[in-house]
């Protein structure tokens, strides 16, 4: 696991997040996207003493989430189908951008679209939230924070590497229950 330079982190135990009303997808409902992000935030909230609350006001939320296409003004233009999928900024910037040109799927719905370039939204959301919290990329391919994700694959369970990195930044959630974490070979529970 790695951190951004200077190990920036949030110094509050509750973070609010909101979705852009203007930069969104027309083929996924807001509820689809909200449900996926709720699960992704809960993954991290189960490990560290930080809670995440969805709010309506995008401008005042700590974490701002939106789907953008091409050059969207932050110096990191998206590049169309595949290539870069999303990016998020280190604490305390709070912005998380997803490439609107991707074929995003939720709930393992790879089949209905049959697309070879379908990308799982929950996997990317869980990864980018790791960046929002201050984690950098991991060299372990099984880690959520590994930079690459193949189309039609899902990777949402935090591994030992992900949890070790975020625990070091924020400490442990007093309610952390090991059995709530993944069964994967690298899970902290097996560690």
């Amino acid at each position, binding site marked *: 696991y790695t951190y951004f330079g200077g190990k920036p982190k949030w110094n509050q135990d509750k973070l609010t997040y909101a979705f852009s009303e203007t930069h969104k997808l027309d083929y996924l409902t807001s509820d689809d996207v909200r449900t996926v992000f709720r699960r992704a935030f809960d993954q991290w909230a189960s490990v560290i003493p930080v809670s995440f609350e969805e709010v309506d006001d995008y401008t005042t939320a700590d974490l701002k989430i939106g789907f953008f296409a091409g050059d969207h003004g932050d110096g990191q233009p998206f*590049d169309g189908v595949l290539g870069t999928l999303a990016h998020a900024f280190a604490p305390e910037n709070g912005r998380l951008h997803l*490439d609107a040109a991707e074929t995003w799927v939720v709930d393992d719905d790879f089949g209905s679209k049959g697309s070879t370039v379908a*990308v799982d939204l929950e996997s990317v959301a869980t990864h980018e939230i790791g960046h929002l919290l201050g984690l*950098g990329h991991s060299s372990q*391919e099984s880690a959520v924070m590994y930079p690459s994700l193949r189309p039609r694959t899902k990777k949402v369970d935090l591994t030992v*590497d992900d949890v070790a990195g975020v625990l070091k930044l924020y400490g442990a959630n007093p309610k952390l229950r090991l059995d709530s974490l993944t069964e994967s070979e690298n899970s902290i529970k097996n560690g």
Partner: protein
Amino acid sequence: RHLAEEATAKATQTIHVSNATWHDFSRLVDVQVGSHVSGVSELKRYLHRFGYVKDDGGDGMKNFSDVFDGRLETAISLYQQNLGLPITGRLDMSTVTLMSSPRCGVSDTHMINAGFHTTAH
């Protein structure tokens, strides 16, 4: 009707261009150090995008030449180290396949500058 056809053609054209170059590193597999191959400059641009190749001059790095030079070999080794691949410095199949895979847009600079922590099992 004519305008509608023109607009559709234009939209299709844009998508095509953005796909054409980003992902097609497969023909660079096993390209050797010292060789001059079209497409190496795109690879350098990819590695520059994610923090592995600096654009501070040298032999035309700013222009990202098509020469597979020593600095590119070093950048590939660092990329392989960071992404958990066998460190060969060469454009072997697994490295090119990973470079062609979709990824997060955040650069790997923090992996290079600060180094990474390992989890003891």
